[in-house]
């Protein structure tokens, strides 16, 4: 695969980086990334990965763009209201960079389709808004042994966490199960500061590119928590948990399953110190 003059110019600021160069840019161009959820986190991730020249971006989402999404879901513009998010997303990605092959799935990720979908990609980005889907993505990535960049946002707080299956802690090494129903409120009720999606989604995209390039130190075995009120990041060390029901020594989860659907947010009593 050779780059055209136009592509060399487009990606010149990457190629100038010794850690990337022409060789790294080719790795990016050959990479396939699956973004689950074309919403708050998926939007900035998709746009930056498209700009970076990722070869194939898979977008899966079953929703249509709603007016209340536009405060943070920057893939979708006002004229897109009512249109499927994957369609709107594909248009924006291709307008930004026609080099990118966009594969869309107007669907939900469920136990039945998750493995097959994920197997076709090199890296998976979690941009979903609910725990059943987050746990399913984690499980599917561990079974398929595909690196996962997990992200979450709520109110003024965000979190990023990279999982390299069987090598680093997975989501269930920390959280064994979704929070019990009844303790949760929907994210519509909870609210989120829109820019947070940009911060967290962009860190997820950074992680995905690093994984493909094989440079630096991935965000594995540590959760990166961001507090927008204080503009402060904090790292929480994690490690593989021998009691993990998925990747531990005696796993109890041996095949994919869907958790009961529930809303996306936990009413959290903040730790006040």
């Amino acid at each position: 695969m050779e780059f055209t003059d136009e592509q060399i110019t487009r990606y010149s600021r990457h190629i100038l980086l010794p850690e990337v160069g022409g060789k790294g840019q080719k790795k990016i161009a050959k990479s396939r990334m699956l973004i689950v959820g074309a919403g708050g986190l998926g939007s900035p991730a998709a746009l930056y990965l498209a700009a970076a020249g990722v070869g194939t971006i898979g977008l899966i989402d079953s929703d249509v763009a709603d007016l209340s999404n536009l405060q943070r879901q920057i893939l979708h513009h006002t004229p897109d209201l009512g249109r499927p998010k994957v369609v709107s997303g594909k248009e924006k990605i291709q307008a930004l960079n026609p080099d990118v092959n966009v594969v869309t799935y107007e669907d939900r990720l469920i136990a039945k389709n998750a493995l097959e979908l994920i197997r076709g990609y090199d890296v998976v980005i979690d941009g979903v808004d609910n725990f059943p889907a987050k746990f399913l993505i984690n499980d599917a990535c561990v079974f398929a042994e595909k690196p996962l960049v997990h992200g979450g946002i709520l109110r003024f707080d965000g979190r990023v966490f990279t999982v390299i299956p069987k090598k680093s802690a997975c989501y269930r090494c920390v959280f064994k199960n979704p929070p019990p129903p009844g303790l949760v409120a929907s994210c519509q009720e909870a609210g989120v500061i829109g820019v947070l999606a940009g911060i967290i989604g962009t860190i997820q995209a950074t992680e995905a590119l690093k994984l493909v390039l094989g440079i630096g130190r991935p965000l594995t075995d540590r959760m990166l928590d961001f507090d927008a009120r204080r503009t402060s990041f904090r790292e929480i060390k994690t490690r593989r948990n021998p009691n993990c029901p998925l990747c531990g020594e005696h796993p109890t989860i041996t095949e994919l399953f869907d958790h009961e659907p529930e809303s996306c947010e936990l009413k959290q009593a903040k730790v006040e110190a």
Partner: protein
Amino acid sequence: MQVKINGKAEEVQGATVLDLLKAKNIDPHMVAVELNNTMLEHDYLATTSVKEGDQVEFLFYMGGGQ
């Protein structure tokens, strides 16, 4: 005695991890608990005591993304 809770030094009474959660009004189901960088199973919250200098993390679920 002093322990670190979510990165901050705090003065607490000698107690179990569950007591710390109760004192902070945190439902144990809402957090994953790490004691000195090792996950602590929920079954052991009531029987694990906290010692001077321990590092405790209460990790809340963070769910949204859309």
